[in-house]
């Protein structure tokens, strides 16, 4: 096995865990605060190992997310692919950002993902009418430092890239 593929299981595992966290039952009052786990993990890997995780992986994760959440097939896929593309474009700058600035960038990316989702839902007439729809962007921003440290340690230990 070449060094290119070393640690691929860590990436896969983190993406699967993100899907599990998306599904995990929470009290109804807390559900609207659920961070966009899949987007967070995809953004991290796009910033950290852009030569391995890109728009293709993001798109496949989006399709799985569509199946899980019962949305239109392709809705999350489109949003995540666009988010991954922007993350790829910005990965050099973003690596130099201080953490709080990175978190802010993540929030903007997730707001963008949600806007694309809202756009599709609006076209088919199922747009949520509550401002709480935007809360996950905020919680994702607050969680970014923890996701970042956790995945960075995993990457340093297992993923042979840098």
């Amino acid at each position: 096995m070449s060094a290119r593929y070393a640690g691929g299981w860590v990436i896969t595992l983190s993406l699967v865990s993100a899907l599990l966290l998306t599904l995990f039952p929470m009290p109804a009052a807390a559900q609207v605060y659920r961070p966009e786990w899949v987007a967070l993990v995809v953004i991290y890997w796009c910033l950290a190992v852009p030569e391995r995780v890109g728009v293709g992986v993001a798109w496949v994760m989006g399709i799985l997310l569509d199946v899980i959440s019962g949305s239109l097939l392709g809705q999350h896929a489109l949003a995540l692919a666009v988010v991954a593309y922007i993350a790829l474009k910005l990965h050099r700058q973003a690596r130099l950002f201080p953490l709080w600035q990175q978190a802010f960038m993540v929030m903007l990316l997730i707001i963008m993902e949600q806007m694309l989702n809202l756009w599709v839902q609006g076209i088919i007439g199922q747009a949520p009418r509550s401002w709480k729809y935007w809360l996950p962007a905020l919680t994702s921003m607050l969680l970014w430092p923890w996701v970042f440290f956790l995945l960075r340690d995993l990457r340093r230990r297992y993923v042979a890239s840098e």
Partner: protein
Amino acid sequence: MNSPFPQRHMKPLFVYGPATSLRLVILCVASLILMTVDHRLHLLGEVRAGLSLAVYPLHYMVDLAARVSHWTGESLSSRNTLLDQNTGLREQNLLLKGQLQKFAALETENKRLRDLLQSSLQIHERLLVAELLQVDMDPFRHQILLNKGSRDGVKTGQPLLDADGVMGQVLHVGPLTSTAVLITDPSHALPVQINRNGLRALAVGTGSFNRLDIPYISKNADVLVGDLLVTSGLGGRFPPSYPVATIVAVENQPGLSFARVSAVPAAHIERSREVLLVVTEPAPPKVTAAPPPAVSTAPSVPATPAAAAPRGATAPPAPAAPVTQPPPVAPEISPLPETEGPIE
């Protein structure tokens, strides 16, 4: 998933470039095509079913974790709690059995009366028990995941009940699981009628678990707080006369052309764990004890059918046409040559 640069072993200098942009454009177009096909043409049922099989392990793991924590809590609960619960359930069982006795008598009576009317309104319904998988879906759309799929005979559009009323209907079916939309989803509307007087209406979801909207009720309509809404069976999806909701508010605002009516669902929408799926089967040919004169069906009594049918305007006509026929007063008299059933 393939990485952007399949055969290169050095770390590439430029990870974005024409290849990535092109890939994004292709994937965006692919998503748009997928969404259009899914939404407009509804051709992706099979694809969705296959993918639901792929994510089944995820669903299963999450559900298992939730189940284990629930089970731990249960096995640690004290003996007294269990005894209390047991007594409560015993009482409830007795009560229900008593009611069931009365129900059995009523059902026999109903059947006899229908036989007398020679009506064919006998919808055979079979109930299938399904359990909710404890996974969270989109919080802004009221959908649930069930542990029964096409393997168990679940079909798209099947109604879903709990012990107290209608919950929703099946939306997507996979081999092992299926997704159902609840009646409180903002995109769901359900044809209902008021049990007291047969007034027809629609029950539209609001996005909140304990509220349904009843739009287009005229201001002088006979609607009272406390009225029970039952399914009317008019949409063809839901079998008639299952309880749906109870009206809790009727407001007449002078500026609006309709009354504002809202209701509380009868089903425990966010609490039920076991649900019933109604499998409606076409009525089998009548092999029951039909009286001999039933052979000469529908003696055409020269009467006005609309006048004979009580409440033709408000009560929904039963799906089977012969019901609108006036009941034969005395089947033995005037057995005219048979005419076709539906006149109207």
